[in-house]
């Protein structure tokens, strides 16, 4: 498979993740969709690294993975704190700062 197939697959995954972030209301599912988008970016990075024949894309994908792990740790801890206070994991219920 040539790199273009992997890039097309990463586009598909990214769009699926974007739809999930926009449509779903459950914060856990939203987080999973953000992870999906980050991994789609990783796939594109690795495909481009292979296309250019160097390893910089793989290093960037490695850093993206580290940042994704840190993001999911803090995000899920925030989700726990919100759930403790509001008894809900829906992103619609966290509207204290809205008005």
């Amino acid at each position, binding site marked *: *498979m*040539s*790199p*273009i197939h*992997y*890039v*097309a697959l990463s*586009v*598909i995954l*990214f*769009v699926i993740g*974007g*739809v999930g972030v*926009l*449509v*779903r*209301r*459950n914060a*856990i*599912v939203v*987080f*999973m969709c953000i*992870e999906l988008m980050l991994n789609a970016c*990783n796939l594109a990075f*690795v*495909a481009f*690294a*292979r*296309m*250019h*024949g*160097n*390893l*910089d894309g*793989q*290093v960037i*994908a*490695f*850093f993206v*993975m*580290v*940042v994704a*792990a*840190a*993001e*999911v*740790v*803090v995000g*899920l*801890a*925030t*989700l*726990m*704190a919100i*759930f*403790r206070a509001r008894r*809900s*994991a*829906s992103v*619609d219920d966290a509207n204290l700062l809205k008005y």
Partner: protein
Amino acid sequence: MQGAPFLAFVQIIVYTGAVLMLFLFVIMLIGISSSDSVVETIKGQRAAAGLAAIGLFVILILGIGHAAIGPAARTTAANNVDNLTGLARLIFTTYVFPFEVTGALLITAAVGAMVLAHRERTTPKPTQRDLAARRLASGHLAPDPSPGVYALHDAADRPALLPDGSTSELSVSQTLAPRDPNAETPPVRPELPASATTEAES
């Protein structure tokens, strides 16, 4: 395939070992009862999201279609030894400062998660003496009765039957009781199991 064996293994280890475990823990703590609501809070948001997704998809596909994405390059000096050596050389020379920064980021994330998940204790922790006094004051010294698990309902959320035929609320754990409000009430007199009746007939 993609020439990235190190990233493949790191992906599997990090995602199955850390991220998915974290998701499982949070789902366990929050519970699966928090289902997704189907009410649209913003009118026409789903349709707009679908349109935006289609638009994004078309733009991205057109973009990568226009770009000259050639076949995979031949192995160059960057990865001619092997993938791991090349990656290590890059991470610890060119990208050594971002690497250190990600270390700081991970520490910050761990401390932040601890701070966010920490709950301050508002009442003093009950000592063993307090627990014993509470048990004496509660009236029954023995442990709570165990739940009634029947052949039909192999579940721990069924209350135990008392000798007079009524059920004991004490026998069901308080965390299990509100979980299934539509559960059928257990029969007041459980039927004898099939083996017992055949034995009685024979």
